């Protein structure tokens, strides 16, 4: 049983989250740093360049990195205060084992003993139940080297099909749709192409809060004359001054895209030459959107017909454009259809593969792009190869020095792994860079499955909420304690540089994985001495694949301030922009710019279906979830940084005053949000900047403040992304503050 060993409040007392504030060296104005280290932010996919100030093996502050071309010194508040995660009182300095008699329920354990115990348990479980009974959960905030190693560790060392990653909650709908339409999964353009686009279409992306640096690109485009169209159920800061705001009813985006394409066809706002020469499948899509008249589109989406017509006209008549989307489009049980709908507008306009004609999905995690390319995904091998493809298996098996037949077949997605725990098929788990108890939907289900595991080992630098269920906790490394590459929102491979050494017994994550392999007696292929050695193998493993990194070196990354993949040889500068006319790729072999054998892009019929759980008389309100700027993902880092918690201390239920008034709720009242799966009592935030039929709650908090107690585990049938953006709830004013307030609020 892996229930938590002691009461939550006792764990928090010992392991946090506690809040780090500026103190000592952070406040000393006369302190000269020992060195400034050029690196990047540890949080989102923008991957802003930053310099870390280091004194006595501690990161004590930052200095802007003005020369890094993407952000030119700009940072959001998370980047500014990220250094406070260093030398944090909650930092795990030893391995721990679960022990209800120890303070906080975990007792320090010598590192080697912990590794031996992990290896013994993996061996026991795999011997008793088969290799597939042990699963791995990994993450896209890791460097690409680590993600590569995790995939190899699963397939070669543990021989389990069951590895998946938290990009499953993030990028997979966009990835699947991009592969269907373009044959490649990467943002097509550098962000500099935003600057002179005539129309910028932003769907389902709270740009200002979730990808803040992109804001300047958009405002700069506006100064250059661009019209900005924003589609969102909330008037987010980026929507506040846009030229056209379309308050879409959550879950109806694909209907809007189909309606726009309908109008483009009606008014002949099409690039016929492009459609004919570079695409297939237009006729079927044209037929499909016939029924999406402006009137029907307006009825389904909740957007005024006039606005839909205006958007179609601007988009249709533009000479240049950039379409951006993020999780608002993708976190749906039909997320892939939404994205395909958006891509159809790009292909019909022919505005792709040229300067200022762009398309991109905004990555969420720091390595949201690189973390989904090199094999930690259930069905994937390095170089964006497919684990189900015999040729791909043969190539990678050769690089790894194993028999292709020994590589497992594709496994299942991260949520399905928990269903397999329920079914008793998975008995053991290793997690790194993933906090599923906070980040997965219907978290009461997730918790029950954690409690059933025979053995669970978590690698992390803080004791995250999921790790509280672990039998063994291994002390991993912070971002600033290791080096390696990540790939940014633009497809730019950049280098994370090490600023400080791991404290105490903590180890760089790749060393921990290799130590486990060694303790299992299967160290062959896991004897790297440096991340650069892992990267060199990754380059070979990716060679000839779609995500070809073979020509990228650390030296080139630093010299060019990043290298855009694909980069198939050392004398190749990288690929700034995909799909340029006449460009070569390994799939089309010169037949065209898109990554299919005929070189042509694919139109795909994008079908509308309502959300898996639509509102009804019992649950009449739509719940949608997302982020706030001062917090990041499951909050395991940002809920420990005092100034960020000060900025937005607790999750609020954002609702329109019309709705609040009908329910007798005033601003700051306690309100219970209840679905068929669970409930959550939080304070109300009554604002006119949200649709009156929808409430919004940010998901960064844990325990009784986690909105994922309420969300639904419905998933897209293709991408398996959960439907975080829509479920049905009812609201009522709470008679009194929830019980957790008194117990937990002092701790956050």
């Amino acid at each position, binding site marked *: 049983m892996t229930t938590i060993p002691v009461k939550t409040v006792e764990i928090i007392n010992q392991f946090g989250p506690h809040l780090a504030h*500026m103190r000592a060296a952070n406040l000393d104005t006369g302190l000269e740093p020992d060195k400034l280290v050029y690196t990047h932010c540890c949080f989102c996919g923008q991957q802003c360049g930053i310099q870390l100030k280091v004194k006595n093996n501690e990161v004590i502050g930052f200095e802007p990195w003005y020369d890094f071309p993407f952000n030119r010194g700009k940072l959001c508040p998370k980047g*500014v205060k990220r250094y406070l995660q260093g030398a944090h009182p909650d930092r795990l300095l030893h391995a721990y084992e679960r022990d209800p008699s120890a303070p906080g329920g975990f007792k320090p354990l010598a590192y080697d003993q912990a590794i031996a115990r992990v290896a013994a348990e993996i061996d026991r479980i795999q011997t008793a139940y088969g290799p597939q009974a042990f699963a791995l959960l990994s993450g896209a905030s890791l460097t690409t080297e680590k993600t590569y190693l995790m995939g190899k560790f699963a397939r070669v060392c543990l021989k389990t099909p069951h590895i998946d990653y938290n990009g499953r909650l993030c990028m997979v709908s966009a990835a699947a749709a991009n592969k269907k339409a373009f044959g490649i999964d990467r943002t097509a353009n550098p962000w500099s192409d935003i600057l002179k686009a005539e129309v910028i279409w932003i769907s389902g992306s709270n740009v200002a809060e979730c990808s803040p640096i992109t804001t300047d690109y958009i405002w700069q485009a506006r100064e250059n004359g661009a019209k900005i169209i924003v589609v969102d159920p909330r008037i987010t800061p980026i929507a506040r001054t846009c030229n056209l705001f379309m308050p879409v009813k959550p879950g109806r985006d694909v209907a809007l895209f189909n309606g726009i394409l309908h109008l483009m066809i009606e008014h002949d706002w099409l690039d016929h030459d492009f459609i004919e020469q570079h695409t297939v499948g237009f006729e079927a899509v044209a037929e499909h959107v016939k029924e999406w008249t402006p009137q029907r589109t*307006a009825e389904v989406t*909740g957007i005024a017909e006039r606005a839909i017509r205006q958007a179609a006209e601007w988009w249709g008549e533009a000479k240049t454009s950039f379409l951006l989307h993020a999780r608002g489009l993708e976190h749906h049980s039909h997320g892939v259809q939404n994205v395909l709908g958006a891509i159809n507008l790009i292909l019909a306009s022919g505005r792709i593969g040229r300067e200022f004609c762009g398309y991109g999905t905004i990555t969420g995690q720091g390595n949201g792009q690189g973390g989904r390319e090199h094999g930690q995904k259930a069905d994937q091998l390095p170089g964006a190869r497919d684990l189900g493809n015999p040729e791909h298996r043969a190539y990678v098996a050769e690089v790894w020095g194993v028999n292709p037949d020994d590589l497992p077949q594709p496994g299942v997605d991260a949520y399905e792994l928990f269903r397999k725990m329920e079914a008793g098929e998975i008995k053991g788990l290793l997690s790194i860079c993933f906090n599923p108890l906070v980040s997965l939907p219907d978290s009461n289900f997730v918790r029950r499955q954690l409690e059933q595991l025979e053995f669970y080992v978590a690698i992390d630098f803080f004791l995250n909420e999921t790790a509280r269920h672990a039998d063994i906790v291994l002390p991993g490394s912070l971002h600033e304690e290791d080096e390696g590459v990540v790939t940014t929102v633009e497809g730019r491979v950049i280098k994370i540089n090490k600023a400080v050494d791991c404290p105490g017994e903590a180890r760089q994550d790749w060393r921990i994985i290799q130590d486990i392999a060694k303790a299992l007696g299967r160290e062959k292929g896991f004897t790297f001495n440096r991340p650069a050695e892992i990267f060199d193998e990754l380059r070979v493993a990716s060679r000839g694949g779609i995500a070809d990194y073979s020509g990228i070196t650390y030296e080139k990354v630093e010299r060019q301030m990043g290298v855009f993949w694909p980069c198939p040889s050392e004398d190749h500068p990288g690929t700034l922009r995909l799909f340029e006319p006449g460009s070569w790729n390994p799939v089309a072999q010169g037949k065209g710019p898109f990554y299919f054998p005929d070189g042509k892009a694919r139109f795909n019929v994008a079908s509308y279906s309502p959300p898996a759980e639509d509102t009804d008389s019992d649950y009449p309100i739509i719940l949608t979830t997302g982020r706030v700027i001062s917090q990041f993902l499951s909050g395991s880092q940002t809920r420990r940084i005092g100034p960020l918690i000060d900025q937005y201390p607790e999750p609020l239920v954002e609702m329109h005053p019309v709705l609040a008034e009908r329910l007798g709720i005033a*601003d700051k009242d306690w309100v219970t949000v209840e679905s068929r799966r669970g409930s959550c009592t939080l304070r109300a935030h009554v604002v006119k900047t949200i649709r009156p*039929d929808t409430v919004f709650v940010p998901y960064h908090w844990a325990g009784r403040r986690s909105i994922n107690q309420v969300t639904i585990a419905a998933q897209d049938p293709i991408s398996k992304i959960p439907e975080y953006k829509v479920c049905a709830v009812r609201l009522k004013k709470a008679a009194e503050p929830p019980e957790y307030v008194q117990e937990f609020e002092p701790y956050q």
Partner: protein
Amino acid sequence: MPVPAENIFFVDPRRCIGCQACVQACSECDTHKGQSMIQLDYIDRATSTQTVPIVCMHCNSPTCAEVCPADAIKVTEDGVVQTARKPRCIACNNCVLACPFGVPKMHTRMSLMMKCDMCYDRTSVGLKPMCASVCPSQALFYGTREEIERLRPQSRPINSFQFGQQMISTKVNLMIPKETPLEYVDVISAMHQPAIGQDIFADILMADLNLEETVQ
């Protein structure tokens, strides 16, 4: 060393996204570490996400210095109004009350008025101030007049503000839409106008909704 004359501070609240990167970065500035000197406020969060960042405008005739009975507030020769001199400041709050922009802050624990000094430790050696360095939306911009003209063709800077009888000109500029026929901002009368867009927001979001069904 003086601030290079060509670099100017520009504020464009239309760009502001309320992210507080400026507030967080301000407290990293070496001259007042741990204290943020910038203010960022919602105009009216119940109706809009509009926020406005307020840095010291560095008035050409700074009211704060003029009302200081202890002559504690000094202006550098390049026009940057500084935090009160510690040995002189008597913590009387005159400056706090008098500043029309509400910039000086009294730190009672230190008995000292502190304010934005445009990161003088940085700007005096050619670096950008912390807030304008990090600002993701570049609502806070630090650069030359040529740069701002090239980068912001739809906007223009003004630096005159009227508060009742008092007309103030400032070193820091406010960006306004180019076509706006203003020579100065009449702040007092602007305060009595409703936040722009209130009605629009209500209309957009209320259109085409069947509320009876939603909240029965």
